[in-house]
């Protein structure tokens, strides 16, 4: 790769009939990096990744992928990249083998090379036993792996994945990320979007996006340092009721729920902790534990979001 950046984005924006989907976004991704664009549904992730894959034109700004402009040199970009859309983009009426063959045909991969590569891709995605199965009859996780296999048939320089693990079971998700990390060893740059915040820690660098705006962009560790506040993790017998109560009474702090754990973000941990204990006692909710914890990325995200929205 000759370009200093695998992806460079400058003031990128997209408007749909007056609605701003992506607003003045700038960042860059180094070659060989695994970059995650993270945000809630409707944040502008898909629009961003489509513009980078050169299948959608921005209404403002510029982007370069492997040093090529995504609008002026769109077709050149498409030779260097692979893109996996959020919806399953393969043919359900074709078998696993036929789908892969189709993509191998598009990229003009020779017979000998093709067999080796397909065998390898199927093996590492555990799809070998399903070669003759119609793609439409695969499970969600297998479909994603087939999509990945098709995307990798031509060893792209940059791989764009739009919510690849959305709706996939946790085991398949872990498998999928394991495959992505193997790919990194081959020097592929990976750009992935996800709404699962727990996946952010698997990325080298992360961009937090909401309402079309990039709120923060750094390594997961540095993003944690962004947290100026502390986190109190509370476990109670009735977390739903407790969250409702705390949200009502503690207006200065942001409260979020992760499974059974309640995270309260606060600048003043000690007084807040005693306030919480008394509030819960008054309502008869028994407190099982309360301690200060390291913020996870979700806390960071919630905190950045609430600052932005304030």
């Amino acid at each position: 790769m000759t370009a200093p950046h695998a992806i460079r984005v400058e003031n990128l924006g997209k408007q749909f009939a007056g609605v701003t989907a992506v607003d003045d976004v700038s960042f860059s991704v180094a070659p060989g990096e695994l970059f995650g664009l993270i945000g809630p549904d409707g944040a502008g992730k898909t629009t961003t990744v489509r513009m980078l894959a050169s299948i959608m034109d921005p209404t403002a700004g510029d982007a370069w992928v492997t040093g090529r402009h995504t609008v002026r040199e769109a077709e050149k970009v498409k030779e260097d990249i692979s893109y996996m859309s959020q919806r399953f983009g393969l043919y359900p009426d074709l078998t696993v083998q036929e789908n892969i063959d189709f993509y191998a045909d598009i990229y003009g991969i020779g017979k000998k090379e093709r067999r080796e590569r397909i065998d390898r891709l199927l093996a590492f995605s555990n799809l070998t036993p399903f070669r003759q199965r119609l793609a439409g009859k695969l499970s969600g996780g297998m479909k994603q792996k087939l999509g990945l296999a098709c995307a990798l048939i031509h060893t792209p320089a940059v791989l764009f994945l739009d919510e690849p693990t959305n709706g996939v079971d946790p085991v398949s998700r872990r498998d999928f990320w394991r495959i992505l990390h193997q790919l990194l060893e081959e020097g592929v740059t990976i750009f992935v979007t996800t709404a699962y915040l727990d996946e952010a820690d698997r990325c080298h660098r992360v961009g937090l996006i909401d309402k079309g705006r990039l709120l923060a962009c750094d390594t997961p560790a540095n993003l944690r340092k962004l947290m100026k506040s502390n986190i109190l993790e509370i476990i109670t017998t009735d977390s739903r009721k407790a969250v409702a109560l705390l949200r009502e009474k503690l207006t200065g702090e942001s409260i979020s729920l992760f499974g059974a754990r309640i995270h309260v973000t606060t600048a003043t941990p000690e007084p807040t902790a005693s306030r919480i204990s008394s509030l819960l006692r008054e309502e008869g909710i028994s407190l099982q534990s309360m301690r200060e914890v390291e913020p996870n990325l979700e806390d960071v995200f919630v905190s950045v979001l609430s600052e932005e929205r304030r």
Partner: protein
Amino acid sequence: MKIHRIRAVARKEFLHVIRDPRSLGMGIAIPLLLLFLFGYALTLDVDRVSLIVWDQDNTPTSRDFLSRFTGSRYFSLHAPATNYRDIEHAIDTRNALVAIVIPHDFTGRLDSGRDAPVQVLVDGTDSNTATIALGYAEAVAGEWSRSVVLKQALRGGERPLPQLVDLRPRIWYNSDMASKNYIFPGLIAVIMMVITALLTSLTVAREWETGTMEQLISTPLQGPEIIIGKLVPYFVIGLLDLLLSVLVGRFLFDVPLRGSLWLLTGLSVIFLISALSIGMLISIVTKSQLLASQLALVATMLPSFLLSGFMFPIENMPPPLQVMTHIISARYLVIILRGIYLKDVGLDVLYGEAAVLTLFGGVVITLAILKFRKKIT
């Protein structure tokens, strides 16, 4: 454009067709259905017109006159009548189309050298058939009158009067004037137009709807490669339909193919490309299967049935409609097919139609390629 990519798209598209019985059924079964429906059920020929007669005279002469009707293949006797109520009933119930009433003084008037009026009643509900039946009746009566005049002249030892004009008609190309010979070649054009446009109208729209197009446009595949690759399997289906039609015409309906099969195939291929491209263009513009298939039906089925001259002669249409028929590509193929099928004419006669079809196909496929964008909007 790279041939290996066109081949890749074509191969994939073939698999879709094979795996989807609907599209295959639509491509083969519907043309067969149309061929049989039109071949067997639809005929514009008027023969064996059902006849009711009331012979008030009932003499050898009147019976001889009537036998000329019942003996011809154009009329068949439904029943004799004995009063007008019978006749009215027969016509009302559509048991008879024509009634002939011979007055009681028929033979007497003839023998005394006077005119003998004979009443002919025709059910005019179906004006076309009525006109033709009336024409038959006039011809039969005229023929019989001449033979009577001739006999009387000979009996009287006179020289028979010469007829002033002796019409000697000879029908070329379709000597039996069988309407199937007229309809069938045109039917091939209609089938190819409707089926192929309908099939291709779904392909691009389907890929946009299911999301596979998003994946496809992120690859180096070029627009023309996608479009041409997608046309290939439907082109093959179209050729199959052509072959099927020619075979059915030859062996089932005895429609003579007098001209060159190669010329017929060659010009049909050009037409096929334009018909396929129309469906493709519709699919590209609408991006919706439902809308595309409905639009394809309206844009191809109606005009090719009504305005191509396949059943309704263009010369009989009002002038504005006649002008409109020039943009219906099926119109040109109908002329070409009839020319090759019945008249054995070659490119020296059909070059104009061939040129228009080529131009038409070129314009439509170019439009389709220009309208196809490798972008999500």
